[in-house]
């Protein structure tokens, strides 16, 4: 079993919801290892922001990407070597703002990746501006008069876009969150978890979530039902909204191929190239 500790100093604010996410990921990785998904086969990525620091706190291989692009990064990893299980840790500014298009396209093509969004309703690392999930009226330094935009419902958007595993978690329900992560990683196809992450410094939502979040004990049977539940505000439902089995992007794009593992060697390429041009 791999020890996931790293030499990096943890610099999250004391009490930050990210600690819970980190614990949940540690638990999830341990369980995945038990179930045969070895840590060596996991590859992670992250955007830029407080959430992304998790990259340095996990002794897992991966690529510390840039703001909003980690969803593209992991899709590239997966296409190169489909044997890997890839996880992108994203911020809400990251995934629902700067890089929204990549997130939605991952869902559209059912890319076999897992995206964990640390949804804290603020740009944490740049000192608390509103994000795509901040409520109307949210006061941050770029909106001192209050945010005038309606927030996105990321679950609804991802359901529409075609994600085949859609869930909401909360580090306050640690084991549940760990379980969601395990299921998401094991799921074949685009797995998405919106994690309600309190930011104690700029958007402390612990009380609200402790009071208003509630676990679902089933998975909605239809897309409509999933959407309805995703839109519900009180209780704010935690759990799996959709879990569908569908062929994934890499399977359809390059059936049975692993570009890195099955690389065609030099001689074969030259031979095939020669054939191609002789037959023309």
């Amino acid at each position, binding site marked *: 079993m791999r020890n996931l500790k790293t030499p990096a100093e943890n610099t999250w604010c004391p009490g930050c919801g990210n600690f819970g996410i980190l614990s949940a990921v540690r638990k999830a990785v341990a369980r995945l290892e038990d179930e045969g998904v070895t840590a060596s086969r996991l590859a992670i990525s992250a955007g830029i922001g407080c959430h992304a620091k998790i990259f340095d706190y996990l002794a897992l291989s991966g690529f510390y990407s840039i703001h909003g*692009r980690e969803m593209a990064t992991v899709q590239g990893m997966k296409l190169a070597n489909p044997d890997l299980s890839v996880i992108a840790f994203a911020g809400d500014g990251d995934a629902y703002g700067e890089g929204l298009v990549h997130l939605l396209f991952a869902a559209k093509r059912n890319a076999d990746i897992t995206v964990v969004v640390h949804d804290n309703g603020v740009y944490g690392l740049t000192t608390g501006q509103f994000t795509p999930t901040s409520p109307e009226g949210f006061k941050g330094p770029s909106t001192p008069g209050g945010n005038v935009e309606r927030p996105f419902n990321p679950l609804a958007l991802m359901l529409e876009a075609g994600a085949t595993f859609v869930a909401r978690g909360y580090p306050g329900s640690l084991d549940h969150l760990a379980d969601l992560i395990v299921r998401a990683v094991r799921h074949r196809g685009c797995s998405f978890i919106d994690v309600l992450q309190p930011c104690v410094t700029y958007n402390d939502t612990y009380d609200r979530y402790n009071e208003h979040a509630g676990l679902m004990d089933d998975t909605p049977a239809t897309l409509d039902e999933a959407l309805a539940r995703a839109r519900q505000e009180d209780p704010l439902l935690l759990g799996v909204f959709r879990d569908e089995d569908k062929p994934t992007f890499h399977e359809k794009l390059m059936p049975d191929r692993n570009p890195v593992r099955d690389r065609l060697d030099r001689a074969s390429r030259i031979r095939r190239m020669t054939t191609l041009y002789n037959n023309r």
Partner: protein
Amino acid sequence: MKDHARFTFLVGGKAGTGVKSAATAAAELFRRLGRRSFQNDDYQSLIRGGHSFSTVTSACHPVFSQYRRADLAVCFDERSVDAHRDHIADKGVLVYDQDKVEDADGIGLPLSELAGEYPRPDLMLGVGALAVLGAAIGLKQVELAELVGDEYARGKQDNLKYAAAVYEKATESLKGRFELARTEEDFTNIGGNEAVALGAAAAGLDLYFAYPMTPATSILHFLAAHGPDLGVVAVHPENEIAVVNMAIGAAFAGARAMVGTSGGGYALMQEGFSLAGMTEAPLLCVVSSRPGPSTGVPTYTAQADLNLVLNSGHGEFPRVVASPGTVEQAFCLAADLLTLAWRFQVPAVLLTEKHLSECRMSLDFRPDRPAWAEPVTHAEGEFRRYRITGDGVSPLLFPPSDEVIKWSSYEHDEAGYTTEARPGITAMQDKRLAKAATLEQAVGELDTVRVHGEGPLIVTWGSTLMSVLEALEFGGIAARVVQPLFLEPLPVRRLAELRGRKPVVVEQSATGSFARLLRERAGVEPGAEIRQYDGRPFDPEELAARLKEAL
């Protein structure tokens, strides 16, 4: 008339009437005759209509350019006749579709009328043009039929019938008008973008990521069609930012990845390019230029992206930039750049232009020439992604692995963890500087500057090389043409030999960005500059005249 040393065939008409494929078929015809050719397609940014034309110049020796003046021009409509009537060679002839063109100084043939009996008459005109060519050069009817059968397989029977009818009509007025020498030589006609794709594939390319953008698009099309044969998977994501970031992710996982685009798409990849610099991700970018700025003139040619490409990405980090002068160079260079990118873990750019990307020319295709892209790999002991080594190159390892492999966009320590400390930052900057020095030396050992011919000096780059070589050939001008294949690291020492020798600099840039590079980086003051920036490649005749004046 006898043995045209050089023969130019032009076909012009509305887009969507088979102009380009007729030219490609003509080039194939020349190939079968043992004649080398150069094909240029001139088309507008539209799908049907407008005016497009393709030119194939062929000879028994290598040809490096189309010629504006055609020996045989086949025009499908008034607009083509108008565009080309003044550019017919001395003993050349203009053939036109008499059903579409009122009256012109040339030979009218009922191309449309004869096509009228088939289901999609407008799609047959290309076959007609080919039949005209066949008649004009005295091709045997069976040779023509064989060609048409091979090149126009869809609706073959109709095509054969139509070709025969046009051939017969055309023979009446044109028979044997041009006698073309043949040779026994064998070679292949390959397009510029096709060569780039092949070169990269030959060097080990695994994944090609691209979003369509003229004039780079045909790399994507070629690899989507032929990738499965060659071991390459082509991926077309949602935009260029996805493209570059997916490619970098793929490199992390060990795949040789390439991306391709034009100036605007490349502009969008700048953040990713810098990411490749910081993470030391091997990445090959193909940039095929068209006139800018911005959308510019999408289907034409220019050398206007040099400055951006040489200075790509924020921050400071080593990179390689090179630009091929011919289709053959494009093939070899794509392979070499992929190899360099992997050997040194740097982003590399193959900078080219519409003129090369979309031309087709004859070459002796040798798939076995390129080397194979292999990184320095980690052998044993503790793995540290950014291990500081003497040459600045850290051995690589790919997942799955029991080692922890961390690539990072943040400034990092040797293991890949974020650092903000003064010594940590300086150490990694120094590592990258060391690698830049290693890279410069390694590139310096390559054949970075190509020299063609002897005589007074001309310096040029990219596909303009072809224009210059052909102009010299046409004008019977002796000159020594110096072509820096690599632009970054710029082979300054080799170029320094040109100092004080006042070369003529030829380029397709409005501001003379290449001349500026020579002047500022290599200390080479041009004696004269020849620029063209109207989107069209140089015409060898015109260029020859300008060169004569300048030399």
